[in-house]
Every structure is written in structure tokens, then in C-alpha cells.
């Protein structure tokens, strides 16, 4: 994927020089290993700062919400699906956007790689399918495919579903993945096991809301946890409030979540918040044949009603 950089810079430069867009949104090289910073170029001289590698996991659609400018945006598969969501939910118009599609081979899981080493990682580079991790007293080569973000491991939409430009040939989609393996494991648990599982999962939460704020779907003008008249949720780390936040947020994602993994990537405590959203993704898929963000011409599962919609889950 490193080869994409020149193409990304070239397309961006052209769009800005020809004044087809007011800005291009992409990534610039981060200041620490496995991190890049979302970055906006407003003139052609800034496109040299754009980078592309396996650390571009943050979903850039998040930066489009309610913008008025014309925008070039670099979009891997999941970003493009979230852009579709933004368009059908009226947070941006298709006409404002020039989508620079990036066929994606997955992003690396910085939480997992960090937890593998006892001493500090000072540099992470990639070379084809290898990731080279260096510290002051070690160097190790890892296979990228084994250290992908969990959502990337089961991704079946690596290619942008909507684009105006494309930086490379489409990549093969993953066929033999069990997309819902993680959910299936939780579904077979007893009630008590589930309770313990989710309590353990959420116990490190510090309520910083990085998951919510990194999510391209969390654009409510005032989030329910920020309501103060009345106040629905306590502000401290009380487990009841923490659970309320995560459960309710997950319900707001039903039929909209594209499993981009931004929430997990953003969490400073490494919580797999997707455990909640993945279940709703599975239900939407199995009950309504619905996958979020694939077409701007279709309305979402929870927004439409058909007489033959399944209803046996209503008790």
C-alpha cells in the first residue's frame, strides 16, 4: 500500500490546483510509531505531507460532518461506506465530494503489537507483507496479515464502494472469513457469562468518549450522555453509567455501523467496543439482508418497513 502515496499526492495536487475542491482530507505521518494524524491540505504545496500506510485506521468520514466546502477525501473501503452513510443521513452531499478511493489491505492493530513487547517500540516500518518492529534493544519482523485490526481481519469490503478517483487497482475481497465469529462466541454464552464478559470488557473504560468521537456515525448535535436537562447518565466512572453509555451508543449504531474499527483503534484503554456493534451488524444482515453504507440509493434497514419484515424477535 506504500505505493499509493505518489498517486494520492498527485490526484490531490491536481484537484487543488484546478480548484475542483477547497480542501483534501487525508493523513500525515505521525510523530510516534503506528500513528498517523488526519490532515487537511488546503493548497497544492501541502500535499507533500500526505502519507499512506497501514496506520491510517481512523475513519476520515468523521471529518466531513456538516461541512459546507467542496472536499476531496481519501477513502478506503470502510471510509467510503461511512461516506455513503453521511450522504444518506444528510450530513454532506454527494456533489460536495470528490472521493479518492484507496483499495485497502487492512490496517495494523497498534494495541496488539504494543502489548507484545515489554520495552518501548521506537519504530515500526512496513515492507510488503512484513512489519518491522524496532526497539532500543530488539528488532522483530512480523507478518502483517497476522496483526491486522480485528475488523480488518473479517472485512469483506476492502475496496471503496463509491469513488471518483482510484489510486490503484481494486484488491481481491476476502471470501473465506467468518465475519461474525466473535459474535457467535458471545451468543452461545449463558446470561451470567455474558454479564461477566461485558463487565470485564468495560472495566478499564475511563469514559473519555474517544470511541464515540472517533465514530463517523456519532454526529448527534448533543449526545445523550451530554444532555444536562434532564441528565440521563452520570458523569463519573460508575459501572452502571459506563454500561448505559456503551449499550445505548451501540443501539444508535444499528443498521449504520460499517465495522470500520475506528472506535477500537481510538480507545486509549484498548477496549474492543465492537463487541456491541458487531451483534447489531449481524442481526441487520441476517434479518433484513442489510449491510450499511453500500449504496446511496437505498434507505437503511431501520428506516424502511416491509410487510414481510421478520418479527419473531418481538416478544
Amino acid at each position, binding site marked *: 500500500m506504500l505505493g499509493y502515496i505518489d498517486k494520492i499526492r498527485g490526484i490531490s495536487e491536481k484537484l487543488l490546483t484546478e480548484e475542483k475542491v477547497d480542501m483534501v482530507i487525508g493523513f500525515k505521518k505521525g510523530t510516534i510509531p503506528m500513528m498517523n494524524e488526519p490532515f487537511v491540505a488546503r493548497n497544492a504545496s501541502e500535499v507533500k505531507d500526505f502519507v499512506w500506510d497501514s496506520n491510517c485506521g481512523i475513519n476520515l468520514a468523521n471529518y466531513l460532518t456538516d461541512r459546507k466546502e467542496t472536499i476531496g477525501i481519501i477513502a478506503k473501503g470502510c471510509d467510503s461506506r461511512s461516506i455513503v452513510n453521511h450522504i444518506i443521513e444528510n450530513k454532506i452531499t454527494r456533489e460536495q465530494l470528490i472521493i479518492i478511493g484507496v483499495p485497502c489491505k487492512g490496517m495494523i492493530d497498534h494495541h496488539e503489537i504494543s502489548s507484545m513487547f515489554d520495552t518501548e517500540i521506537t519504530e515500526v516500518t512496513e515492507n510488503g507483507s512484513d512489519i518491522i518492529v524496532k526497539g532500543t534493544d530488539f528488532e522483530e519482523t512480523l507478518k502483517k496479515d497476522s496483526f491486522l485490526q480485528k475488523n480488518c481481519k473479517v472485512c469483506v469490503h476492502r475496496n471503496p464502494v463509491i469513488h471518483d478517483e482510484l489510486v490503484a487497482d481494486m484488491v481481491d475481497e476476502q471470501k473465506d472469513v467468518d465475519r461474525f465469529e466473535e459474535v457467535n462466541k458471545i451468543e452461545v454464552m449463558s446470561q451470567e457469562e455474558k454479564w461477566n464478559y461485558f463487565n470485564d470488557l468495560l472495566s478499564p473504560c475511563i469514559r473519555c468518549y474517544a470511541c464515540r468521537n*472517533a465514530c463517523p456515525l456519532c454526529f448527534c448535535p448533543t449526545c445523550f450522555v451530554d444532555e444536562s436537562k434532564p441528565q440521563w447518565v452520570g458523569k463519573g466512572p460508575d459501572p452502571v453509567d459506563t454500561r448505559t453509555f456503551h449499550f445505548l451508543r451501540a443501539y444508535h449504531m444499528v443498521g449504520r455501523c460499517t465495522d470500520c474499527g475506528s472506535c477500537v483503534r481510538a480507545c*486509549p484503554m484498548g477496549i474492543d467496543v465492537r463487541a456491541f456493534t458487531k451483534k447489531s451488524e449481524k442481526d441487520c444482515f441476517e434479518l433484513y439482508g442489510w449491510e450499511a453504507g453500500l449504496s446511496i440509493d437505498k434507505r437503511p434497514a431501520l428506516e424502511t418497513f416491509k410487510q414481510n419484515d421478520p418479527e419473531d424477535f418481538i416478544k
Partner: protein
Amino acid sequence: MKVIKIDKKDWAGGLERSRNTYKLIGPVKEKDKDISSFKPLGKDMLPDLDVMATSVSPKSIVFPQEEVMLTYTTDESKEDCNLFKSHDKDYSPRAVIGIRPFDAAAFLLVKKNFDTPDYRDPYWCDAYEACTFIGLAINNPDSLDFSPSTKTGPFDTSGLDVLLVETEDSYLAQVVTEKGEAYLNAAGWENEAGNGVDKQIGDMKKAAETKITSSISYDKIKSKEILDLYNADFWDQASFACINCGTCTYVCPTCWCFDIQDETRGKKGIRTKAWDSCMFPLFTIHTTGHNPRGTKLQRVRQRFMHKLKYFMDKYDDGIMCVGCGRCIRSCPVNIDIRSICETMNNYEPAK
């Protein structure tokens, strides 16, 4: 300065003896995860001294994320109906084992806010005074540690009662205060280190300082006009990536903002204080609905101006940062205080 030599073989034993007088708190690493925090050390638990900077800073030892301040009842049949009453607190002695020098120094910065000539915050101050800080020098600073730039450093004793320096088979315990000496006595560590120990510690300190690779400069910020920096054009680009979560402020050892709320359940109520964050829109919203810091740019600017400009102007004692590197490591979108500080320091308004 008096230095006690603690044989590593007697480390666990001494900690155990000290439990007769002190509750112990120390860094604990979560199993198989890259996260760690300061926690009460239950029986048989030892502090994990390999942890450099815990994921979340130890500020919660003195300033918990949520803390009950007062209690009340709304039961009208009770005599004390609607009267606030103080909440029982435990301020018995506790020892914070293995706190890093920059984290201990952070308490001194925060103290400027909670312990002033005009007002003493009883919650913060009482908890702070109950602590004895048994710090651990950083022999191998990581690449994000820029503590020497912020007037602390890997062997800084300013916020500590004892500084432990780890050698192969022992901890050299430099006694900084009487509180520190009392702790060492309670642990039964009393063998004074021999001649040459001062030089040994001095050499290790120098070696650690030379390993620091990260730094910031803020020498020119003080002389800049507040409004020039406030109105500077770089905030737009500097704040673009920010998603306005509270991670940086929550992991920071020097961020001290909090909210106070009353929570009533049935007829029983508590008044609590809980961490708040200048990154959240709710932090500043008025009851009218107007929000003086309604945009992301305004909130990001506030955080950095407070840390790097307003604090310096108010107290004339450096910046509100100890260079621990946590906000850089934890930021989901890689906003780096070192780059922002550099931009601020080098900024010249257009004439």
C-alpha cells in the same frame, strides 16, 4: 543526603512490614494488555516497577475520577432534611510505591490550584497529605519523556519523599523528607549505603539524562501577547485532527478540571465531584444554551493555551506539563503537544 540500601531480596518483606502502618498503592499492569494504572495493592500484590508511565496518571490517588463530597437526605420527616453533611473519608497514611519523578512533580503543579493562600480544597489537600511518595528513578527514559524540559527529570526529587534508584541487586533509597524516613523505618530498611553512593547515584542520573531524546522549548512564549497567540492562524490546522474526546485530559497528571453534581436516588443524595474536560462542549455550555467555547478550535486552543501560556503567566513557574508523554501516546489522532508547543514558541504575528 542519607541513602539507605535495600537488598532486593528484602523488597517484598519490607513492603509487607510497612503495611502495618500504611496502605500501599502502586503501578499495576493489566495482564496481556498494554495498559496499566495505579491501584491499591492488596495482600501479596507487589508494585509492577517495570511500568514506565502508567496509561492513566496517578493523579487519581489524590483526585479520584469521581469522589463523594457531601451527602444529604430529602426526607422531610428527618431533622436534617436538605442539609448537606460531610462524608466520611479515609485519610489514613498511604504510601505510593514506584511513582515516577515526573508524576510526583505533577502534584506540585496541581497543588498551586488546590492549595492557595485564599482557599484550601480539603478533599485534594487531605488526600495529598495522607500520601508518602516513594518514587522510582527512571534509569531508561522512553522516547516520549521530555521531563527535563519541564523542570523535572528522571531523578527529580522535588515531589518525592524517597527516591529509589534501582541497581542490579538493590534499591538505593535516597531520603528526601522526614515523611520518607518514617516510611523506610516502618518497612524496616535501615542499612545506610556506603561511601561513594552519592557519586553512583549522580552518575546514574547523568546517564539517564543523556538518554532523553525528546524536548520542548517554551522560552519565547512568556513574552508573547496572549491575544497574538489566541488569534494566531495555526489553530485551525493544529486542531483539525482533534476528535474532542477527553483522552489527553484524563491521562494527564496535571489536568485538574472537575464538575460538581448532585445525584439523588430515592430520598438519599450525594454531592460528587468528577473529572471534567475542556475538550467536551458540555464543559462550558451556559444554562442559556450559549457556549462560549462552542467549536473544536476554541477547545483545543484552550487546552494548550492553559498549559503553555496562561499557567506560565499566572504563576511564573514554568508550564503546566511535566513531560510524561502520556497525551502523545494516548491521543487517537496523534496530536502532539511537542509540535504545538514548538509552533506557539516560534509564532510571530504578521505585522
